[in-house]
């Protein structure tokens, strides 16, 4: 069919040159930042065994994976995220590496969405993992790096909202409700409708102390506000430890000077199930979707090996970052400032001239069309070439420099031209 010949499958798309420039701008900004903080880049296969990708991530993500059968009958899938591959790599390839280990990745991931919204099924993520440490300092570093990374690419008014996966889980469990009702309660917390939340808790006879804790935590917006929660005589799982951890993380954030950019959101959850500690999301005002997020997953890596290795990480969606930048009116700069087209009747001289430009770090294209001058200039104008240079029989002789936008012609040597270029572009 013509359609399949000319189009790409649902949820996939082409990225044309300008968009790739923007993507590169973001990716390289993030890469530079991650490296500066001592994180090292890894890559892993696009296709992995389903078991490796689906261990501990929860059914929602498993359902969203593109799965197919390998020639030997094994079921493989396209990676839907990178934390599981990292956990596998840590266990199998890096067993004696001194911890903490700092890794990062920038890659495409694939998710099949059943939603009526035609979401991209292939999208690009940049993420970091800090493995082998569960101190508040490790949590703080990840949050600080997240904020620093987003600022680095030019985003303004970045904020991070932090919840705690086990705090929420332990308190929901303490209600003694069955799983269905717990899910309902969790939904109500997410709705932020206090009236209905209170009604539900009354109807289900949640003990007064626990009720008070739920309402109190729902109203906390700063991490240090959780200190006002009093647990009384009950333990509610490890609630006390979780609250303590949030306060400790807050202290670390203060040392980074970012405590006013990080907020508490008791109801915050992530779609992936492996989180055990803080979970978080980054956002900017005027862009309605989170840019990315992550959390602590201390019980996840041991599902691959036998050793318990605590870890924390985040992933950013490049596309969302780009959309948010656009919403803030930011135009990533084109990096290739000047493009030169070199033409000549004398091929040897033209090739030498192009080499000279390349050696000087200037973007130069050789005219390969063998067209006449008029056609060359027409092409240059349409293709956005900044200068066309007509080279004589040797590159020592002056060349004709033609600016298609202003129609100005000049006779100069390549050396002088490069000097002027260096002077004007710096």
């Amino acid at each position, binding site marked *: 069919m013509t359609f399949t010949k000319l189009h790409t499958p649902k949820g996939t798309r082409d990225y044309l040159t300008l968009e790739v420039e923007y993507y590169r701008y973001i990716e390289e900004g993030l890469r530079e930042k991650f490296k500066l903080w001592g994180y090292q880049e890894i890559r892993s296969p696009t296709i992995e065994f389903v078991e490796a990708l689906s261990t501990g991530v929860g059914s929602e993500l498993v359902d969203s994976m593109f799965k197919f059968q390998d020639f030997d009958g094994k079921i493989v899938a396209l990676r839907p995220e990178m934390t599981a591959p990292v956990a596998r790599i840590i266990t199998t390839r890096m067993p004696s590496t001194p911890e903490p280990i700092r890794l990062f990745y920038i890659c495409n991931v694939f998710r099949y969405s059943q939603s009526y*919204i035609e979401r991209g099924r292939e999208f690009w993520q940049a993420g970091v993992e800090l493995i082998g440490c569960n101190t508040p300092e490790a949590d703080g570093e990840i949050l600080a790096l997240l904020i620093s990374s987003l600022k680095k690419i030019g985003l303004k008014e970045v904020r991070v909202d932090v919840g705690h996966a086990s705090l929420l889980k332990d308190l929901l469990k303490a209600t003694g409700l069955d799983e269905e009702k717990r899910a309902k309660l969790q939904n109500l917390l997410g709705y932020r*409708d206090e009236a209905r939340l209170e009604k539900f808790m009354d109807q289900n006879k949640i003990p007064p102390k626990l009720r008070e804790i739920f309402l109190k935590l729902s109203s906390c917006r700063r991490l240090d506000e959780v200190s006002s929660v009093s647990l009384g005589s009950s333990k509610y799982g490890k609630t006390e430890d979780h609250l303590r951890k949030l306060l400790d993380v807050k202290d670390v954030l203060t040392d980074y000077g970012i405590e006013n950019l990080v907020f508490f959101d008791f109801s915050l959850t992530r779609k992936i199930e492996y989180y055990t500690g803080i979970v978080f999301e980054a956002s900017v005002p005027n862009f309605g979707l989170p840019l990315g997020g992550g959390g602590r997953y201390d019980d996840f890596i041991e599902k691959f090996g036998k050793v318990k290795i605590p870890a924390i990480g985040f992933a950013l969606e490049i596309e969302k970052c780009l959309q948010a930048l656009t919403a803030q009116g930011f135009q990533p700069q084109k990096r290739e400032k000047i493009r030169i087209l070199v033409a000549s009747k004398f091929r040897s001289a033209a090739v030498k001239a192009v080499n000279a430009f390349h050696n000087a770090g200037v973007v130069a294209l050789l005219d390969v069309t063998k067209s006449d001058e008029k056609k060359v200039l027409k092409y240059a104008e349409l293709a956005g070439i900044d200068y066309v240079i007509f080279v004589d029989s040797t590159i020592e002789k002056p060349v004709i420099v033609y600016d298609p936008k202003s129609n100005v012609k000049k006779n100069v040597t390549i050396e002088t031209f490069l000097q002027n270029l260096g002077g004007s572009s710096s």
Partner: protein
Amino acid sequence: MKRKIRIAIPSKGRLRQPSIKALQRAGINILEEERVYVSKTSDPRFEAIFVRAFDVPLYVQYGAVDLGITGHDLILEREADVHELLDLGFGKCQLVVAVPENSTIRSVKDISIVAKVATEFPNLSRRYFEGLGKQVEILRVRGTAELAPKLGLAEIIVDVSSTGETLRKNNLKVIATILDSTCRLACNKISFRTFESEIKEFLSRLKQGGLE
């Protein structure tokens, strides 16, 4: 200065007028009600956007608007990941399963595997029937699902009903209720963070204004 807070209001249908009135009771009057999509309000911090009720959850989820008034049923159908800050009380309705009065189907138990269901709510319908272990063919229609059984397009419809009047007129009877719904104030999750104090103040005025 912060930008205006955008609130989406159903552009037509039974939810439009009560939504406008609820805003009025909260002290926000819409200044250009007729034939505009974006309207100023008497409160300079808010502007009103008229959007189809069905699309309100989508606008809110993506942050195209900060707040939106729409049915709980529509938020669920659209699977929108949004806050539902307040039950506004009006727009009471039920999502029901209905069949022609003379149908041999008396309850959902009688539904055979070949049954076709016409509905504007394919997601909620699919989940409901799958929950019952019933395999049905779901035909998505827009508006007037009541017509489908008459013309033999489907044996069953899933539709909203507030008084039951439309169903009766079309000789349809309700055999099950999927959910009860009312109008909600939905909020984009990031807007809630950005505008929490303004939104909370608006919420308390809505509550003071009295819910229907």
